[in-house]
């Protein structure tokens, strides 16, 4: 077991050789065969690392409500871009287009998060030419 453990842990170096996108392998957590698109109302946002989670309530056709958790990225990046906990208040309507978790619980990744009119949520990441690009002292 000890040898196997050592082999497995050493893999950090191998994995880092590939382009790194997220803190963990989203392909291991979410099912690419289960694309899902939902419109719902934000009930809360967890500003936690390694990844923030947005909670939404989705109204079903029969009038019942299903709660979903949507995984985003590091909240540090949002803070650095000037967003605060007040930036996504409960009650905000959003559209989430992503993939459901492999355990089939009501969790999905926020592959694409927009407002119902198509505007992107939290616009302003580096490289998009938006005002927060001037955030650094450089």
């Amino acid at each position: 077991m000890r040898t196997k453990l050592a082999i497995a842990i050493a893999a950090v170096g191998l994995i880092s050789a590939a382009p790194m996108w997220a803190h963990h392998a989203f392909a291991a957590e979410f099912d690419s065969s289960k694309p899902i698109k939902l419109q719902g109302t934000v009930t809360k946002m967890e500003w936690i690392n390694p990844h923030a989670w947005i909670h939404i309530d989705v109204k079903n056709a029969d009038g019942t409500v299903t709660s979903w958790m949507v995984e985003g990225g590091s909240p540090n990046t949002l803070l650095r871009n000037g967003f605060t906990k007040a930036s996504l208040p409960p009650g905000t309507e959003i559209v989430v287009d992503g993939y459901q978790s492999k355990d089939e619980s009501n969790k999905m990744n926020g592959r694409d998060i927009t407002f119902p009119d198509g505007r992107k949520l939290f616009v302003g990441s580096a490289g998009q030419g938006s005002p927060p690009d001037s955030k650094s002292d450089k």
Partner: protein
Amino acid sequence: MRSACLIVILALTAIAACAQSDLQGIWSNATITPLERPSDLAGKPTFTAEEAAAYEKQVAERSNVDHRSANAEADVSSAYNQFWYDRGTKTVGTRRTSLIVDPPDGHIPALTPEAQKRVQETRAWMQEHSTDGPEGRSLGERCILWATAGPPMMPGPYNNNFQIVQTRNQVVILNEMIHNARIIPLDGSPHLASNIRQWMGDSRGHWDGNTLVVDTTNFSDEYSFRGSDRNLHLTERFTRVSPDTLLYEFTVDDPTAFTKPWTAQIAVTTTKGPIFEYACHEGNYAMTDILAGARAAEKKSLK
């Protein structure tokens, strides 16, 4: 006489402390320049200003994950919208086309046959056991070490920030990713005994003129940087070349893993603080999600 001597010693100490180059500040190593030179830039070690601008535009377009992939597997791997990323937008200030400056071809030297065998075995084991339990996941997913936080420190997808705090006898490097704080003694003390192994190794520093040189050995057997093993000897050099630029170089020397040493160089720039906490374990729901997904798949296959 004794007190006069004491004054002289104190004065010399103060002069020595003042003579140190001041590396303190909050720094960003975000850059889009890759560690290794892309194949289409083979034989071209540096950009002109115009070429760098064109490359920056091309990379910004190519790496924008808001462009959805038709391949669902690739699409899910892109994780989430572009607004969560902060890789930087610029090539490295040296205008190099790769962070690796030696060997001159900009590529990591070949692994030794033993290292190749170890890497292949690791990959095979990972494929088979990666969802057996948390121990099979990467150190980053387990919130133990972030692959680019170092040592050596490399640019990653976001939170590419670190803070240097310096005294006469110690330097501390606080890295935002997984909030690692590396304490580097400058007192001339020797490395730990070779049987004592640490996740981030054992760092010892000294001044070479205005350059802080940090030697790190004693890495854990369970740590590997780009294929390195327990014999990794890492040398980092920090030189403040201007008020807002720190030239950071590192040399990877591991004769049992690489066929020759290699060196990379990053022009690191000052950035606005503060460093934010990265409380990785606090909300690491993904670990349970990944393992729960694997258990659900197993149950399905038994039906």
